[in-house]
């Protein structure tokens, strides 16, 4: 499995092989994300699961990382690999992290499942310089056909029935990029993945129709605003 080089990927010079048993188990989108993280970055991985992406980045790209996940069993797996994970609620607790304290903040296939994605995106922009966001594309042609045929889309990237899906926000690539712009984020790179999770020429040329999902690299543009008044501390 190789990372395609036909797409711009800052800091990705993956000449050397991995040499790490763990990296072989990365999902295809995680392998692409790892290629987008500059060597030596400090990385915050939101919804990090078992911490494999961070472990890979620590071993292969000399990164420092912290993961955030809510599941205790995943956290124990990550801890056993020496990946620091803090158990917090993405929706409520990102305020715990300092301003501008990470080079890269990753949010992989999670934004569509949080109740307040705008708040999460703004916190990511506050915490990190570069944001990497992957999202399923509701506008993918197969999803459109499903809807025209009278059924909610079910696909490899949106694999749930309407009544048991964790996803609460649906967007197309076009909607997503308009929203990024409205939030003041610059899109540095877009990687369009076909339904099998790999970049294709078609998906790259017509992402809104042919991409099952996308990975966006964003520049935060966040600047600090002076606090109005000191906040009393608890405890």
């Amino acid at each position, binding site marked *: 499995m190789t990372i395609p080089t036909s797409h711009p990927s800052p800091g990705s010079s993956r000449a050397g092989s991995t040499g790490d048993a763990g990296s072989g188990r990365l999902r295809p989108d995680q392998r692409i994300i790892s290629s987008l993280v500059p060597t030596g970055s*400090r990385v915050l991985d939101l919804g990090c699961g078992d911490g494999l992406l961070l*472990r890979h980045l*620590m071993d292969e790209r*000399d*990164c*420092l990382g*912290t993961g955030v996940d*809510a*599941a*205790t*069993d995943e*956290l*124990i*797996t*990550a*801890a*056993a*690999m*020496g*990946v*620091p*994970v*803090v*158990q*917090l609620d993405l929706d409520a607790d990102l*305020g*715990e*992290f*300092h301003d501008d*304290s990470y080079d890269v903040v990753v949010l992989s296939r999670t934004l569509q499942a949080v109740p307040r994605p705008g708040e999460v995106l703004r916190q990511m922009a506050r915490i990190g310089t570069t944001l990497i966001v992957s999202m399923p594309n509701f506008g993918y042609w197969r999803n459109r056909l499903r809807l025209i045929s009278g059924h909610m889309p079910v696909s490899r990237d949106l694999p749930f029935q309407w009544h048991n899906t964790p996803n609460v926000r649906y967007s197309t690539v076009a909607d997503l990029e308009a929203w990024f712009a409205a939030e003041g984020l610059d899109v540095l790179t877009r990687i369009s993945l076909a339904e099998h999770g790999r970049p294709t020429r078609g998906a790259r040329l017509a992402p809104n129709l042919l991409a099952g999902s996308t990975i966006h690299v964003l520049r935060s543009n966040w600047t600090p605003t002076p606090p109005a008044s000191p*906040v*009393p*501390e*608890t*405890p």
Partner: protein
Amino acid sequence: MPRQPAPRTEPIGPGVGLVATQVATVATPDHPLDLVAGGRLDHVDVAYETYGTLSPQRDNAVYICHALTGDAHGAGRHEGDAKPGWWDNIIGPGRAIDTDRWFVVCSNLLGGCSGTTGPTSINPDTGREWGINFPQVDMHDFVEVHLRLAAHLGIERFHAVVGGSMGGMQALDWSLTHPDTLDNAVIIAASSRLTAQNIAFSAVGREAIIRDPDFEDGGYLHAEARPDTGLSIARMLAHITYLSEDAFAEKFGRSHQFGQSRRGFGVDFAVESYLDHQGEAFLTRFDPLSYIYLTRVMDYFDPFGHAGATNLVVQDPVNFLVVCFDTDWRFSPAHSRRIVRHLEGAGLPVTFATIASSWGHDSFLMKLDPYHELVRAFLEVPDRRRTSRAASRAPHFDGHICDREVSR
């Protein structure tokens, strides 16, 4: 995700077996212990126990710091005792702090009353018990004594320092002030700064002791009676804060001690009998002066309260595991999150979990599988996977007082 409290489970294997407490002298007139608050001790004995075997490289030592009323008897059994040490369920062959791997050291605190020098020890200058003239002690003093015991044992660097409640505070203080002497710190159900409510409970406990007529202004050691009433009330009060409301409800509900109600002012509800027993049992193993000295140490503990608090540990990074329990209201999860905020904010590698448990603060003493599995996983990370090699170039947000304090 629905909350599923972790069930209590039985300890793994038979434990460490028979053990005995030993004593080491760590301060002498030639090498006295100068205390943070200004006093000096020319003679300090430390009671300690060890479990497992120190490796030839002396690199597998784990230090256990006990909580307010613990002692050096962390694991195994003393000859003739029915009950094992206070943290036996986590220390032993195959247990989360695995004595097949680790050489475990557990010692009694300075100011305590279970073998280490404290107010009930003899003041060499007078030949009588120190009593209330024992100098004020501090969390730093505890750590200094731990390090002197380490030197006595020939250990320069610990694989890990582990503690719950006030033990976690020692582990935190140790990692901030002497980061070159440990690789990993496990801080469980602890606090980096007591709230006004915490101090209030602490104050009432002390007042119960001090206002007991038998306290004799601290002179009871030379008198016939001891302020046992005060000490037992202090223990009963504190014990309420160690359990959650759910735990009390589950354990006792409103059931009556004697089958049917005996209306009056004596013990009637089962919970009253339980507290009464807790208070009484405590008298046989604890001293009133030690209690007021040690609780006071917690009140003043504020390791992040000055600029640059994390400077040393950032230069020599320690891996942190911070654990709390969702029903703990003595040191609620907010206390642990404050610790995480400061450490993570300083760019240090921190793992943090809130374990779902019904048992409140006392959860840290119980075998709850996710909790013990996490401690084991953290301690047993292969060396090549340790993150500290890179952490020293982390962005570093101390040098000022951490400003991300969230109000809620």
